[in-house]
């Protein structure tokens, strides 16, 4: 018996506007609403709405079909403001009773690594939003970018979750296969679902790659690969960005048709079915324990954190940001708190990544900046303004100069 478990990640950051050093202390609007609306509407048109339509049709057609989503809080918030029809279409999916919503940090942040308190608060904020919009309570947690280790599993179990999701990375799995339910070595009952990255990436990354020997990927071929695990695996965890449908893989690649026909093809085999993460956890006993000390993610060949924290400017920016936590919370100013949180979204640090830049591969991901350095400069300017706002509460020096701002921000970071 092989259960196919789909989880789609849905996220859009609040991108910042171009914010110059000359605006520090003068303007406190940091986000590029026009750009964010434009991107959201574009992706809604190309991906979210048509993909949700396909999923709804599949759910209506196949009572066995099940899927799950993780929607970042900042994504849901933008949809509520600028594309409510997207929220409605997700609601329609959840109403079928066969669509699970997973838990994550509201701000799609790296908070766990810098502040457990903040992490917990963001998870709770997300939970509240999911309850409000979908009347659902997430039971399974996925951390931003699938960042994971034993310690995170322990913490998440402590928060009451039943399961957690991670990359099925070979060095962590060792001789094991990703196609079973596991238990983190250090937790009591928490289940661990690991991504089958080969099959997931066949859809998410390689689907339209004409240089790939398996191109074109048909539902028959893909189903054959799934069937091959019958007898040697219990679940095939297909985890990917939802933007795969229509945005990363354009409609003309046939990605929607692929998805439209995949469930019926998979269900042709009597031993195949679909399960949500919670169902898998409920119905399968952990096959073994997984011991993972080092932090892993689902990114890049390295599966590490270097895309967000790999260089000095990323580390400087994020350290300064979290160093401000106490002062930000002490202000009790909801606007300051929310701005500070929106700056935590992992994308802002991803834009500062320099590791691929020499190859000119900067457009590997939608990046609103010309260079990682521009991204840092913009972030630093906004941080300086935020520090000034926080400082104004401390009533130390309302007309602080840049020099003083720096000494506060950077001194705290060290």
């Amino acid at each position: 018996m092989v259960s196919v478990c789909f989880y789609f990640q849905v996220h859009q950051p609040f991108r910042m506007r171009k914010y110059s050093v000359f605006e520090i202390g003068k303007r406190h609007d940091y986000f590029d609403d026009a750009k964010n609306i434009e991107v959201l509407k574009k992706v809604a048109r190309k991906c979210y709405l048509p993909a949700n339509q396909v999923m709804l049709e599949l759910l209506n057609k196949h009572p066995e079909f099940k899927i799950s989503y993780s929607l970042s809080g900042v994504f849901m918030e933008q949809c509520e403001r600028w594309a409510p029809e997207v929220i409605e279409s997700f609601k329609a999916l959840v109403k079928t009773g066969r669509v699970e919503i997973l838990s994550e940090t509201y701000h799609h942040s790296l908070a766990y690594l810098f502040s457990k308190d903040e992490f917990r608060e963001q998870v709770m904020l997300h939970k509240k939003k999911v309850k409000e919009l979908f009347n659902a309570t997430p039971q399974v947690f996925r951390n931003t970018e699938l960042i994971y280790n034993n310690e995170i599993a322990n913490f998440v179990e402590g928060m009451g979750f039943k399961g957690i999701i991670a990359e099925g990375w070979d060095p962590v799995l060792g001789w094991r296969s990703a196609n079973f339910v596991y238990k983190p070595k250090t937790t009591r009952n928490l289940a661990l679902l690991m991504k089958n990255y080969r099959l997931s990436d066949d859809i998410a990354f390689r689907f339209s790659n004409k240089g790939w020997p398996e191109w074109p990927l048909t539902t028959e071929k893909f189903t054959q690969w799934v069937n091959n695990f019958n007898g040697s695996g219990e679940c095939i965890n297909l985890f990917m960005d939802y933007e795969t449908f229509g945005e990363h893989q354009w409609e003309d690649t046939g990605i929607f048709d692929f998805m439209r026909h995949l469930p019926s093809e998979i269900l042709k085999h009597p031993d195949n079915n679909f399960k949500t993460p919670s169902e898998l956890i409920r119905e399968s006993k952990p096959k073994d324990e997984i011991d993972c000390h080092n932090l892993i993610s689902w990114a890049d060949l390295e599966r590490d954190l270097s895309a967000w924290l790999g260089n000095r400017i990323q580390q400087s920016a994020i350290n300064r940001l979290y160093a401000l936590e106490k002062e930000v919370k002490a202000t009790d100013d909801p606007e300051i708190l929310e701005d500070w949180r929106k700056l935590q979204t992992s994308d802002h640090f991803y834009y500062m990544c320099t590791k691929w830049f020499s190859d000119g591969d900067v457009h590997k991901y939608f990046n609103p900046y010309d260079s990682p350095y521009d991204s840092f400069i913009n972030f630093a300017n906004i941080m300086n303004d935020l520090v000034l706002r926080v400082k104004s509460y401390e009533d130390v020096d309302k007309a602080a100069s840049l020099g003083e701002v720096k000494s506060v921000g950077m001194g705290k970071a060290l």
Partner: protein
Amino acid sequence: MFGWEFPPFKSGGLGTACYDLTKGLSRQGVSVTFVMPAAPEGANAEFVKIIGANNLAKNIKVRKISSVLAPYQSFSSYDEHLKQVRLLTGPKSKSNDIYGKNLAEEVQRYAIVAEHIAREEPHDVIHVHDWMTYQAGMNAKRISGKPLVAHIHATEFDRTGGHPNQFISHIEYKGLKAADIVIANSNWTKKNVIEQYKIDPGKIEVVHWGIDADSPHYHLGQKSPFAEEKTVLFLGRITIQKGPDYFIEAADRVLKYLPKTKFVVAGSGDMFERMINRAADLGILSNFVFTGFLSGADVHRAFQMADLYVMPSVSEPFGLVALESLKNGTPILISKQSGVSEVVNHALKTDFWDVDDMANKIVNVLAYPELHAELKENCTREVQKFNLDEPAQKTRAIYEKALSIRR
């Protein structure tokens, strides 16, 4: 090969480019006879020594003709330049006087000498560098019938900030039209040549410049004399093309945030006075250091003592000097209107006219050591991809293509 300057006697990046190209070509087994207008005697000795030190002298022969041609001169500054050349060459060099005192006449005389050289010197390809040598190249081609490769390092539109001298742009046009192949030093230049002169894009090849992989000059270890203050460098001719006025305006804005910053201006040119006056008017002259024209090791020292090199050129066909800065470990802020911005990723880039953005970036590099360090580490690594062999290989291939077209 017809050029007009060769290190150490040069006023801009072109001398360096010709030096590097001939050196690289020599390694590719191409024998180059380099024809140049008069160089001072001392300069020639030094030149031979430089080439000899690298064991390349056997493939490069320098032919001098007496002249005061200087490519970046406007007609008005020509007389001034003539005086300077006489100062450099000494009063005994009467030979300069056999040529006319106006630039148009100089170009003509250079072109006439070119005919003689085309007769005397065996060659397969004629390679000319910029408008001053185009007439010479056309004449040589008429004599020998060999293919003409016109290298364009800067168009008259670049040099004048869009106010071309008709005489010069006409020669430029004729030379580019007459050439069998045009070599542009960037896509930016190629685009300009196509737009301004309607040259057939099919005969334009782009060869980006390289730079010496290593040089003792990169390791002089020059420290900034300003212990406390950060230093921002402008290095280049102080002419409209190089955007010195934008540098001053950006400096004024930077000083509002980082009032101790030092701005070093290395170079000379016809906007020098205007630059000083503007800085004085803004009340920021005391933050400026003017070094005058630098050459040789001093250029590298200037880079090494700077925290950031700014190249705010209005139109920079390539901008070899930016690579020199990187070689010396100094991060760069370059205008997007430059060829070098096409090939360097780890750099700050701005539109030359956007002085607010320029200042924004300068302030941040100076304020955040981690940003400076990240730029420095990555640009130092990235600049290693440049060398002299690649442009020379491409140039050699272009010669072969030119020869095959002519056959």
